[in-house]
């Protein structure tokens, strides 16, 4: 059973769709992360490339993943921010070997947390310190410190080091996220 299947089962059969956003800078490993959620037998891929803006959607039953690059200068911002409106959880993928862009990751994270559609909600955020297998990779503790995650008070968050190529660390993170989304939905209903 694929990771995704587990996640879907864990959430149970619900009337309402559950949307999970997968965000991060380009080349951080989002596509690889999303692909590893898909099990061999139910591979429904739906890639929508737009000029300068890439969105990948992948849906099964009532669980949908939307992944996009937080790159491009300003112009496409509105496009991806549009997805903030109805999401239930966020997976933030970070290339932990890209030390140069850690400041950019922090900037994008801060911008996302300040966004009106995000800052009001108690959305769970899962951080993948991805590419942990690279030799220049920073530890998840160092990344959490560099991003100032301890200052996020109003949202549950979790960081796990991962290797999206081998799948290492993904499951731990996804289980945490599922648990959080479930709690959130049960409080609501």
């Amino acid at each position, binding site marked *: 059973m694929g990771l995704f299947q587990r996640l879907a089962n864990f959430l149970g059969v619900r009337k309402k769709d559950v949307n999970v956003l997968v965000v991060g800078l380009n080349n951080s490993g989002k596509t690889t992360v999303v692909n590893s959620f898909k099990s061999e037998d139910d591979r429904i891929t739906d890639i929508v490339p737009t000029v300068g803006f890439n969105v990948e959607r992948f849906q099964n039953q009532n669980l949908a993943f939307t992944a996009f690059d937080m790159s491009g200068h300003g112009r496409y911002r509105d496009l991806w921010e549009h997805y903030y409106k109805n999401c239930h959880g966020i997976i933030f993928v970070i290339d932990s070997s890209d030390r140069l*862009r850690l400041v950019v990751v922090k900037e994008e994270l801060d911008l996302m947390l300040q966004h009106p559609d995000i800052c009001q909600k108690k959305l769970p955020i899962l951080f993948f310190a991805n590419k942990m297998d690279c030799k220049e990779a920073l530890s998840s503790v160092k990344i959490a410190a560099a991003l100032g995650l301890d200052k996020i008070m109003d949202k549950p968050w979790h960081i796990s080091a991962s290797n999206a190529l081998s799948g290492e660390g993904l499951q731990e993170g996804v289980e945490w996220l599922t648990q959080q989304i479930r709690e959130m939905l049960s409080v609501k209903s």
Partner: protein
Amino acid sequence: MSRGELGISRWLEAHTDRSAGLTTLPGNMVLADVAGTGDYHLVLTDLKFNQDTKCRLKVYKGTLLVSDQPLPDIPSSVVGFYADQLEPRIPVVAVACGSELFAYKNLKPFYKFRVPFCPLVDEEAGVWTEVTNSESFGADKLLNALKAIPYASLSARSQYILNQTSPILVAELLRKCGKTMPTKENIITCMASMARSSRDRRAIACPIIATEFGSIFVLDPQNFAILHQANTCNVKATPFIIKSTGLFDVEFRLLIATREGHICLLRKGWLEGKCLIQLTSDIVDMVAVPGDNFVIVATSDKALHCYSKKGQRLWSTTTANLVTCMSLVPLEHISTCMVAIGLKNGSIQLYQGRQPVDFTSVADSPSVITFGQLGQEEHVMVVITIGGSISFKILKRTADFSSKVQENSPMLQSRPLPLPKRSKLFLEQSIRERKNALEIHQTFQQDLIRLRLSAARALVQNLSDQSGIGNEKEQLKLSAQVLGLGPKFTVILSLENINPNNPLVGLCVTFHVNPLYYVLSLYAAKVPLIPPSLSYKLETKVEEVIKEGVESDDLPVGGGKGNCKVIRVFVTRELMPVPVLAATINMPPTELIV
């Protein structure tokens, strides 16, 4: 200088290493995808000027140093260019050391190109042919013969001989190498690269080298054959910066800055460059703005000059501090190309046209600035300072330069102004003016005096008119009323807001009197908010001081010189030194009943 809206910098400080200990010069740092993975690396030379340590070629992947190898000689310049179409696309990095060009691929040297020797000047060649042919050419004779030739045009061997102090050494040298002609090396001073036939970022490009003696070579990127050779200029010129625009196969322009303060232009097909611009002070750095074909030059007298492609000066401006280096900052997403100017005090100014639009700073004087893609990030500025530190700055995705009033590119004033033709009326008038100059002048003066008089009259009228003086700009009108027969009076001031839309706030009223004559119940008062088109009344009690023995009639009354029987009113706005309104109330004399 304006920053982003909230006064926040447009730059993210990604990394600074103050102990990097790097020494490098402009033209020695490039951003290139040396691994062929799309992950751009920083390639630079680290200069060492002492004899024992070798200069090094260093490569940074992101902020990490990943390769560090010694160079055979002191490098003068580094370029990166694509030499072939093979996948994966890996560019060649070429390092110029002395008169040789070392080409690296995958960070390994694979080819060495030597610039052809320069021909000896005729006199020197003559001397050495004699030396090689005759057995008995004395050291003294050689020294005298060489001294007669300008030192700078001699080969290295002749220069070396001239620098020897003892004739024995010269004789020794002569014996050792007297049988061969000396060679004159053509030292490379600077380089550039130029795309061959396509403007693509990864298009095949030719390396261009410029040498100490002013030769320019355009090389074939694959076999390093000389595709084109030319001279910088028809006079002696030592190139030290070369910039290229255009395509080698189509049409190109090379701009060459020389140590003599010229900027020369070399175009496709030319065998000799043309001096385009001549500067009176030393050139520090130069950039060629693509598209517009402008050249921006920084000189040692804190000036920046911009020239059109024809060499006409479009604008000049002065910088706050000495310029140490420059870099183009092309921003494709907003279709502009800015120029980063590094100043001696460690500040880096970003110019859009002649306007500084942003700045950022580093620890000390920047020695080299480059801007471009590094790693996965498109807009990275790398700065090496004279102190040896390296800083990486990333332009924020949200950086907005649009709020700044965009200045149009400077208009050329070469065309005459579109003046209308001289009409018959104009001619007649000018004839009349010449004929009756005196009368016309007198009439004019008379009218001017009359105008002044009526202006003065109006002013006096206005000043003496107590009821209702106003300040148009502040939209305030003041009138005063004096009640009573004395010695006790009541003065009622009325402040009217004549603005129909906005309320008046923050006003104060101050009464100024001579305390020998009047005592007031209220000297100063704050005025509350006056709503639009309404007025506010303020009252003060006035008592005249009647001193014995001083007859009130003795005091000058009315508009006389030392008029003391007045109350001056000042309406002021908080924190403003100049009153908004000032008025004088002439008090009536007290009718004393004795």
